[in-house]
């Protein structure tokens, strides 16, 4: 797997490729919704370039359409995106980052990149940036395409393409579960997230579950040391 097939950047870029199938249609649809909501071409693209957070952009477009106050949109964005604190805490200990590399890595950080990088043994900064820019480029090209296309495309949820995302995270989760404590955390987290999502949707279930599940794991493994993911157990991102 670590046989050098191109640079770390290229390997990171390609590692995200299986997710393009899910990212492209949703980028297109985001742009269509944003244009319907009355945002200009430049504004639609600006959210993808500057904020670069799918769920927050979807809800912002919807809120702009209803004439919501800016404060409400910013607060919703915060609730949806505060989960990235957990991703940063986890990644910051595994990828060596200094100087400009830290804000650069932070700017492009997403669920999908965290998933692919966290499931990989000893990821480098180059691999991380390759994965991050792979998603950024795809999302922004899809936004641009959607903003030009207008409302002539079918809803990807009608095709079931939204299923790509839970399948991807399940496929990333499976190889990480090796001990009883890890299995317990995965099962309990799945149930807790489902239950919380019945009450409040968006980013809150991820934050609540991320904290509760990790506390459970730390408590279950008290008195033991847990290591890095083992080399042979990491998921292979590409064939």
């Amino acid at each position, binding site marked *: 797997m670590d046989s050098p097939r191109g640079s770390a950047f290229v390997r990171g870029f390609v590692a995200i490729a299986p997710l393009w199938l899910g990212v492209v249609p949703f980028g297109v649809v985001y742009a269509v919704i944003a244009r319907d909501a009355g945002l200009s071409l430049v504004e639609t693209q600006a959210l993808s370039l500057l904020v670069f957070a799918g769920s927050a952009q979807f809800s912002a477009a919807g809120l702009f359409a209803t004439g919501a106050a800016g404060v409400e949109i910013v607060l919703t964005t915060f609730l949806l995106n505060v989960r990235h*604190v957990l991703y940063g805490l986890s990644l910051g200990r595994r990828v060596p980052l200094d100087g400009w590399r830290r804000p650069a890595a932070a700017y492009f950080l997403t669920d999908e990149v965290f998933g692919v990088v966290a499931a990989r043994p000893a990821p480098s900064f180059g691999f991380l940036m390759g994965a991050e820019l792979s998603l950024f480029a795809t999302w922004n090209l899809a936004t641009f395409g959607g903003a030009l296309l207008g409302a002539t495309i079918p809803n990807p949820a009608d095709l079931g393409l939204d299923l790509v995302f839970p399948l991807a995270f399940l496929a990333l989760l499976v190889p990480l579960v090796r001990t009883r404590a890890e299995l317990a955390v995965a099962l309990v987290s799945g*149930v807790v997230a489902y239950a919380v999502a019945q009450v409040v949707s968006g980013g809150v279930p991820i934050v609540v579950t991320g904290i509760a599940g990790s506390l459970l794991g730390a408590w279950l493994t008290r008195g033991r040391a847990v290591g890095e993911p083992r080399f042979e157990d990491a998921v292979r991102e590409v064939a």
Partner: protein
Amino acid sequence: MTFWLTTAGMVAVTFGSRYAGLALRSELPAFWVRFLHFVPIAVFAALVTPSLEGAMGEGEIRLVGAVVAGLAAWRTRNLGVSIAAGMLAFWLLRIPF
């Protein structure tokens, strides 16, 4: 103008969240090191279950797709193959007979 002010706010809270975790680099007590080990496991599970059933009453066949993808991930440890297997199972079951 409101748009750009709102966007600036969105950028601030989004980048702030993304940067805050990465910026914390001090040595952590053993409990929190173990806590962080479980973050990907808990978060990935939380990204699966709430969006599994979907909004179109296809919960059962989506669940079958997830089981197929999970088995494929267990056997192959390959992300692309797992997604393809799960989506294929889902789309095949979706064909009205």
